[in-house]
């Protein structure tokens, strides 16, 4: 089995996704949960782009690149919204975790 750039990064993508997934569920602080969603996203995007690298002809497949740019912007918008919610909750109640509830 040949190990190249594609293989290394596609493996990394799965690991990042798992770290993010675990983080969203296990982390307590809002901010950390939000960071975790971005790490999850990074895993997914890495997966897309590693395929682009693998399937490259004269240039790398541009579709995944474009999808990833769109994806990053959308994910960051959602994360910024989550962050603003978290800050607002903190301002109103002083809480920075969901507490005992799941």
């Amino acid at each position, binding site marked *: 089995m040949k190990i190249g750039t594609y293989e290394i990064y596609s493996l990394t993508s*799965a690991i990042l996704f798992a770290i993010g997934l675990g983080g969203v569920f*296990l982390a307590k*602080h809002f901010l*950390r949960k939000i*960071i975790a969603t971005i790490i999850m996203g990074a895993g997914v995007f890495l997966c897309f782009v590693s395929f682009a*690298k693998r399937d490259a002809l004269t240039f790398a497949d541009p579709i995944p690149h474009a999808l990833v740019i*769109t994806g990053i912007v959308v994910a960051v918008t959602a994360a910024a919204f989550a962050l*603003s919610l978290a800050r607002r909750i903190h301002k109103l109640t002083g809480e920075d975790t969901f507490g005992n509830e799941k």
Partner: protein
Amino acid sequence: MDILIDSLLAILTIYLAFRCMLAPKLSKAVFVFFAFGLMLALAWIRLGAVDVAIAEAAIASGFMGVLMLDSLRDFSLIFSKNQERLEETASKIPIKKDSYHWTTALALGLGLILFLLISIQAIWEVPQGGGLTAIAEANLPMSGVEHPVTAVLLNYRAYDTWLEIGVILMGLLAIFAAGGLKQYRKPGLAPAQDPLLRKTILIFTPVLFLFGAFLLYFGKMGPGGAFQAAVLWGAIGILLHLGGWTVFTVIPRRMRQILVTIGLGFFMILGFTQMATGGAFFEYPPAYAGFLILVVETLAAISIAAALTAIFAFLTK
């Protein structure tokens, strides 16, 4: 040699992701997050995705990181008033031994590892799909631009990009909704007292503007484009705001509305015009495609930059 660099980068990225989750202090997690973004940007470059690298560094790491840093101040501000809670955050780690029973933690951990193994196996066996490189390349001359990624973003899949520009506007509205819609705090200009900060900002403003314009214009032929340029222009707004020139709050309301909607609005009107003249939504006449795409990109960049500045101004009020 390549493999060595790649593996090192991959291991570093994974390590930093772990640190983000496990760093005992929240502030440290945010700084590690910056580093994580930079490593990821390097990984994109290694994978030949320079556009993605710029977008990652500018948007995911840069803009999001700044927001997080700022919110960090917010989150710790109240703690410093209350020593008890400061202690609590200092020792806050995600997998708190006292809050999760060990069986739960074990089950979750095992589940996660199982998921990871399955996903690795699935990824490992992804058959060669071939991608769309060939078709994208064949249609490139008709798309009006020379850079394939720009062609995908603004021509082949312009609809997605249009929705995405919409998403940014929606995000801005959503953040207003979450903040209880109190308008910006500072009504007037209050330039920073620190002369050094003022000088820095004054120097950086034209540089960022030119660099953004460069990315925008050359997005036609090489890496760069509306989103990357928008973040640089947005950075001008944010810097000015930090320096006390709260530009976004002093311009008239109507102007603000036009600034944040013009990208989406023009793109949409263009689409409707194309349909009215017998084409499909976002079907550019080939002769004008290049020019129209540049206009769309410029206006979109202005809108996104305005939205980013507005988000920052609103959150840091």
